[in-house]
């Protein structure tokens, strides 16, 4: 026993509590406030219960945006995670080449998001953009991201891959560099194939960094706003109106704060749930709970 009870120690966590309160809890509670009430002015509000939720959940526009969002995030993960792993495996381990590769990889990550959008908006234009001109001219394909939904999707997806695959690659690269040489030496003595080395040494040792990469890429892609807003503005039509763009339209476009707050909460819960699922699946995979 011999433990001293001293409740004053709670004061030591007070600074963190205050910071978290202002950065997360108070804004979140504000949103909850708006979601369950119709607030017209500081003294003028009505309790509406789950009315806003019923309204937004049955709204076709929201369901479509949510579906788009799920498809987009799935595509992002399916492309960026394998591509990042391949890039990391291909990056030189040491020497001047390693430094050069690291700088090259980090470049897209250093560019502000709206600038990324602007770059691609111009880059993909059929008239003055290099990529757009090349696809329409020398390649002879009919490509116009402002008019064709599929082209718009591809543009946004390629942009995201360009912007964020380096993050996955850098994380994987760090994971790969942490594997002691003895593992590769043992594998070569055991006569393991390149695939076996990847499957039984590299991939399991990258589990931790891949978990972080998947979570970060999922959360970021699921809340993507700036880049598609700059490039397509959610169009053509509603083709690239992702959940966050839909939400912004309602919140700051139409100023319907009640429904917007309800959407925000639903949005938040979806991300929380899916992240929780990803985390638990990836923690368990290949550790004995499942047969490999």
């Amino acid at each position, binding site marked *: 026993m011999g433990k001293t009870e001293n409740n004053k120690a709670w004061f030591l966590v007070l600074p963190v509590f205050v910071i978290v309160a202002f950065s997360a809890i108070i804004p979140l509670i504000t949103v909850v406030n708006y979601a369950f009430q119709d607030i017209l002015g500081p003294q003028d509000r009505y309790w509406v219960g789950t009315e806003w939720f019923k309204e937004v959940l049955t709204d076709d526009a929201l369901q479509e945006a949510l579906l788009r969002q799920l498809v987009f995030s799935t595509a992002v993960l399916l492309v960026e995670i394998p591509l990042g792993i391949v890039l990391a495996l291909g990056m030189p381990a040491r020497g001047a080449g390693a430094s050069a590769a690291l700088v090259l990889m980090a470049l897209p990550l250093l560019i502000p998001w709206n600038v990324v959008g602007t770059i691609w908006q111009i880059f993909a234009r059929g008239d003055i953009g290099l990529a757009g001109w090349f696809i329409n001219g020398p390649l002879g394909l009919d490509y116009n991201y402002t008019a064709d939904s599929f082209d718009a999707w591809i543009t946004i997806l390629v942009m995201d891959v360009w912007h964020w695959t380096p993050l996955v690659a850098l994380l994987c690269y760090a994971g790969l560099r942490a594997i002691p040489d003895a593992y590769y*030496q043992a594998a*070569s*003595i055991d*006569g393991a194939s390149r695939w*076996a080395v990847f499957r*039984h040494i590299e991939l*399991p040792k990258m589990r931790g960094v891949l978990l972080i990469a998947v979570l970060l890429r999922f959360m970021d892609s699921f809340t993507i706003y700036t880049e598609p807003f700059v490039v397509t503005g959610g169009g053509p039509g509603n083709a690239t109106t992702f959940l966050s763009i839909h939400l912004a339209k309602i919140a700051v476009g139409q100023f319907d704060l009640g429904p917007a707050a309800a959407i925000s909460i639903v949005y938040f819960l979806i991300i929380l749930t899916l992240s929780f699922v990803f985390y638990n699946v990836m923690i368990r995979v*290949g550790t*004995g709970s499942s047969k490999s």
Partner: protein
Amino acid sequence: MARIELRDLAHAYGPRPEREEDYALKRADFAWEDGGAYALLGPSGCGKTTMLNIISGLVRPSEGKVLFDGKDVTGLSPAARNIAQVFQFPVVYDTMSVGENLAFPLKNRGLPRAEIEERVREVAQMLELSPMLHQRAAGLAADAKQKISVGRGLVRSDVAAILFDEPLTVIDPHLKWRLRRNLKEIHARFRRTLVYVTHDQNEALTFADKVVVMHEGQIVQTGTPQELFEEPAHRFVGFFIGSPGMNFLPVEGDEAGLRLEGTDIVLGRELAAQARGRSGRLELGIRPEFLELHEAPVADGLEAALTEVQDLGNFKLATVRLGPHLLKVKLHEDAAVPQARGWLRLPPTRTRLYAGGRLIG
């Protein structure tokens, strides 16, 4: 199984080595006989691991050749050389069970399933891994993991040699002893060529039939533990093996014999002939175990001052001063210890002469 021959071998890690210091492994010719149990002994950084990696093919030597049974394998990969190696830190494949780990090298070589199972069962039994064959390897303790690493080396029946690179570093002392016994038994049963790298002389002397001592990138002596103890071919071997190491006394040759530096004491008349015409620093070497310390004057006794006596349980360690030089004497635990001064005798049959660090007589 194979006789492993190193011909004109040298290795430098940097490009374009010029001076001798650039070489991690200096030019050597050496052969590991088929079926021998060797210990490769030396301090950290002396080139033991480089030597091992060159044998296994993980490192390609910058000069010279590696031959297995007369066949040049210098350019072959470790897998093609068919060699097994166990590393300092256990390497297990986390995604596999213990049994799958053991089967992995055989599976990669496309052996029939029944044979793999048979071999895995046999090796698991030898290493006392049978009860955990179906357990996952990831969660096991360090010693069990190292046993798996060893097992992956043993499971192949046709390997040219099994190389161990300080395999017991991470193992608890009492388990160390058992694992070493395990290895000895396995060697006795299968007569594979074993090369065991270590910097621990006890490990080397208890494990091996032949000990190869390395120092600064060179093999300085190869011999049985007894030979290394009684006839150290190099100053370094005398110093490195034995606890405490050999005493070395700097001497100068003159007409009468070998005169102890800084004194008029003449020693080792029998060895004086060998010293004539030798270049390099002359030194007499004698083991603390062989030095005699008497309470009363004896024939050929040299009067020496006693500076310290340590009682180390089953023996006593005396430090004596002979002129300006200090010597260690290992005494029996019941031996009478002289007070303040005693008479030191160097038995001629146990006294060795070194010139420039090398044994000459």
